[in-house]
């Protein structure tokens, strides 16, 4: 009996060692695993492709970028994950400045224009996220409301309780909207519009994905929407349309970064390289409606619609610099209504 057990154990060991040694000659890091923080659509499918290519397993926790930043601050430098994938660039800039990120210039990033990269190498732009409005046409018809065409329209009192956005202190998308409005209308008129919009907003949600979903359900008429989420909702057949406000919409960078003290630097770097490679970018564009930052990656048919929009890409440095002052003011004036 004992001999049989020993034999079985040896065979099992041999199989394990053998498979590790030979099966993955072209995937040197196969069998390792990394952990990441992420706020992105299509991640499950994208990461599955990555695992297929490299054999590295991905464990992720979904968190808004603002949440990641405050968690990093609270943990005081203790490593929490290996990499950080997607979200608002403002949080990445702050995290880089405060020393939570590891500088890494991926060889794949050479193709990517400089304006999409951190000068210190702390983060690299993965893709460009646009913001649009998801508008429920049934609700508009029922309430006899016109289709909003501009950001200015959103301040119209007719839309009382029919507009929703998410808490900009947590959601990078919605911080980008505030930033954008202040950029195009100037300090005074910008805040004036934000205040008028606030009067129409019953409450602020926590996740950036919630407003378009609430508009799709008819809970409100208009939801401020990260474009990649709205595309899925339109495809699901809800009675909604996507509207790009005429003044132009904010386009902001969704970055990727290496965390300081990553447990498996090598695997985490491999992950970043893959995400910035031509193949990785094309995989991402298949599963999430964001245009990749790599010029040589092919943009799929369904994303061509973005071309009609007037996208204003925000200067990431300025986005980072103004974050505290804009959010502090917002928190003071409107923070009470945020969904808790």
């Amino acid at each position: 009996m004992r001999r049989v057990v020993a034999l079985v154990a040896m065979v099992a060991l041999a199989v394990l060692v053998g498979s590790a040694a030979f099966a993955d000659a072209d995937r040197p890091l196969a069998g390792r695993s990394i952990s990441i923080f992420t706020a992105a659509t299509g991640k499950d499918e994208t990461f599955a492709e990555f695992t297929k290519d490299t054999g590295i397993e991905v464990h992720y926790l979904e968190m808004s970028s603002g949440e990641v930043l405050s968690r990093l601050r609270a943990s005081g430098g203790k490593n929490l994950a290996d990499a950080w994938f997607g979200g608002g660039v403002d949080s990445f800039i702050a995290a880089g400045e405060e020393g939570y990120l590891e500088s890494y210039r991926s060889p794949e990033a050479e193709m990517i224009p400089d304006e999409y990269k951190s000068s210190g190498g702390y983060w690299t732009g993965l893709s460009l996220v646009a913001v649009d409005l998801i508008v429920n046409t049934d609700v508009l018809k029922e309430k006899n409301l016109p289709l909003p065409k501009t950001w200015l329209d959103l301040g119209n009192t007719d839309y009382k309780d029919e507009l929703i956005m998410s808490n900009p202190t947590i959601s990078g998308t919605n911080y980008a909207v505030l930033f954008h409005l202040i950029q195009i209308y100037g300090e005074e008129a910008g805040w004036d519009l934000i205040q008028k919009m606030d009067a129409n907003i019953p409450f602020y949600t926590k996740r950036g994905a919630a407003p378009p979903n609430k508009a799709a359900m008819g809970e409100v008429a208009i939801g401020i929407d990260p474009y990649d989420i709205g595309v899925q909702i339109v495809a699901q057949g809800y009675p909604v349309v996507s509207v790009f406000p005429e003044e132009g919409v904010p386009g902001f960078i969704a970055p990727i970064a290496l965390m300081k003290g990553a447990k498996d630097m090598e695997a985490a770097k491999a992950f970043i390289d893959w995400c910035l490679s031509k193949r990785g970018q094309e995989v991402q564009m298949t599963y999430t409606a964001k245009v990749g930052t790599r010029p040589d990656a092919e943009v799929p048919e369904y994303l061509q619609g973005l071309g009609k929009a007037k996208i204003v890409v925000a200067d990431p440095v300025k986005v980072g610099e103004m974050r505290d002052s804009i959010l502090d003011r917002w928190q003071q004036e409107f923070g009470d209504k945020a969904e808790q």
Partner: protein
Amino acid sequence: MGIKQSSSTHSKGAFLPDASSFLYALLAGGVLIFILWPTIAILKESILVDGTFSLERYRDLLTGNRTLLKNSLFVGWWTTVLAVLIGLCCATYVTRTSFRGKRAVLGVLLMTLISPPFVSSLSYIMLFGRRGLVTWRLLGISWSPYGAHGVILMESVGLAAVAAFLIMAVLRGIDRSLEQASFDLGAGRWETLIRVTLPLAAPGIVTAALIVFIRSLSDFGTPMFIGGNYNVLATQAYMVAMGSYDLPKAAAISTILLVPAFLVFLVYRKLMSGAPLFSSKSVAAGDERPLPGAVRWFVFSVVWSFVLFEGMKYGAILCGAFVKTWGVNFSFTLQHLNTLQLTKLGSLLRSVRYSFVAALVAGLMGVVMARFIGRRATLFSRAVEFIADLPFILPGPFFGIAYLLAFNRLPEAFLGTGFLIVANCVYRQLSLGIKSGVSVLKQINPELEDAVRDQGGGGLAVLRDVTGPLLMPAFLVSFINTFTFTMTTIGGIIFLITPYTKVLTAEMFDAIQSGDIGASSVMASVIILVAMAVNVAFSWLLLKGRKKGSEVEYVPSFGATR
């Protein structure tokens, strides 16, 4: 009989004194480390500002956030009133009327009891939202579903089951001959109900009210999903901890939650010391007289409205899992199920694994500790029991943030493996295991153990032949409860989740938060199905065991706040 009078000293000696003392020290140490230490850690965090003692945070909270406190108490009060009313009606219906359909009512109650606490919010929006199936499609009304009214309604129906099972246990235990005596002395049906039955049931009703109140206070999911801009303390604690990660402030907020909970706990311990957790067989006494007609019909209509409401709630979730786009396209699809299979299977398996381990550990620890505590009335044992009882009432966010603070510096191996999540659940449920063990042990005649020893059996033989089999039902009860709890809880463990330890409730929480109805519905259905299957399987085991003469009855989990 006369041979061994000094049985207690003898039995201690025979049961491997060193090993058992060591085991006891180990278990007691666990209670101190995993309950007392985190509690101290969170209290400490809330009163230290830059290393010195200060009540500044509490002052800020009480002056700046008075609305939150007021909202919490408002929701808690009305939820308690409504939940206890519904619970009382259900309990009366099942134990005191001759109406049909008791099994259906019990089934719905059980289902409500074991489903994750925030499932209600999901179906609330599906059914009663601004575009809800009922409110908009059927009734055509346009109203605002977000606010205190929705929170109170959904918490009430969700917690009614807790109240119902507690009150049921007490009603079953009431000696029917007391009512009989009242009738014989000439009292009418109304007088007997008001002056005999209700006072006798009062401890159960008060306990139910207290537990419902604490659970309402510590629920952050419902107000978060359907409260709109109506905020309560629990949601604020969650947001401050997870959103801005200001742990000292979160500690202070959840400590404020603790104050009413602790008061309730003292009352609860006093009441529960008399009432059995396992209801004994009710005393049958001659012919029973029906309740007054008005009461019967009131009970009937409340109970069936509740059952109908719950039926719709779970029906909506089940349908939501299989229709393409809720509210727009109701055609059948397996697409959401496939998504679950593709991406969330790992979390589901992890949930089941954690639940199983937690249930096993809590069950074993419970009965072993019951043996120690039940037989030794030292001050230390009583202190250990008191501490073990604490987590039963600690608000989920409080216990979760406490773990975060106490064990944040543990090596990665503990954090990445779900050790903390399992420990959190085990210690939340431990007191129930101890209690059921103690109540079973009370029924065992100590001489039975001595008899085995006299025949030459050692400590192990006693355990194998006497104590073990008798404690089996207590173990099973604790197992089912802990399994269900771990499978469905979110309040405490959400603070302990890492990329490697995602569980299905956390995934569902995210999905509801993002408004993804299809995915949320699938996950909710799966969680409920797994919990239900385990409950049915294990209560069957329990019932089978009962035929061998044990007097234990299955009382499902009404326990700790989730």
